[in-house]
């Protein structure tokens, strides 16, 4: 799965999790830019991403994420690793 495909899927996920169609999912996007992106919603977001991409994150990995760009890189690395297994 390449980056444009990951961003496209993430856009659908963000719309679903935040119930908001106008969120532009860019690499710079972070919690401070989205109303309602608090710690509890972040858990829902991570669970939804894991389910959609059929991957699992560790707690330290989630803790290091600073924006959507970091999340995309993590998804990319994790899906690549899965393909190689």
């Amino acid at each position: 799965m390449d980056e444009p495909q990951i961003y496209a899927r993430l856009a659908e996920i963000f719309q679903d999790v935040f119930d908001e169609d106008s969120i532009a999912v860019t690499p710079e996007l972070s919690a401070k830019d989205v109303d309602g992106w608090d710690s509890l919603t972040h858990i829902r977001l991570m669970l939804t991403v894991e389910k959609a991409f059929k991957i699992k994150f560790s707690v330290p990995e989630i803790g290091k994420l600073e924006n959507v760009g970091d999340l995309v890189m993590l998804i990319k690395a994790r899906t690549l690793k899965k393909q190689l297994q």
Partner: protein
Amino acid sequence: MNSLYSELQWLPRPPREFRERLRDLENSAGQLGRELQSLALHALDVNQLTKLAKTIGKARADGRSLEPLVPLRLAVLSNSTIDLIVPALVASAARHGIALEVIQPSYDQVAQEALTPGSKVNSSKPDAVLLALDYRALR
């Protein structure tokens, strides 16, 4: 976890237009409770459960009738974070014909809420109280 339970496999898949149907209900003049129950009858994921619970909460705050759902006020006393469970309780209760209102006091205030007459839980006069206690905090 067994996907039978995690995916609620005994229930039908939710309609593709679930979000739209839920949004339409906010301005619908139809029987809201029956419509909410028909949406709740599907295998909803965590985001759909959250949206459905939010719609029920908003309807209640707006004074809209949720009939034929039967009202039930449940206080949950817990020493764990239950914020992610509450929407699932509310939305799943609708599946069973119940308009559940959850009274959720502040985190880890079990004894204070139970023993103080004017606490949030006692003053809300719940129909039932759920003690959801983690054994590790009992000492």
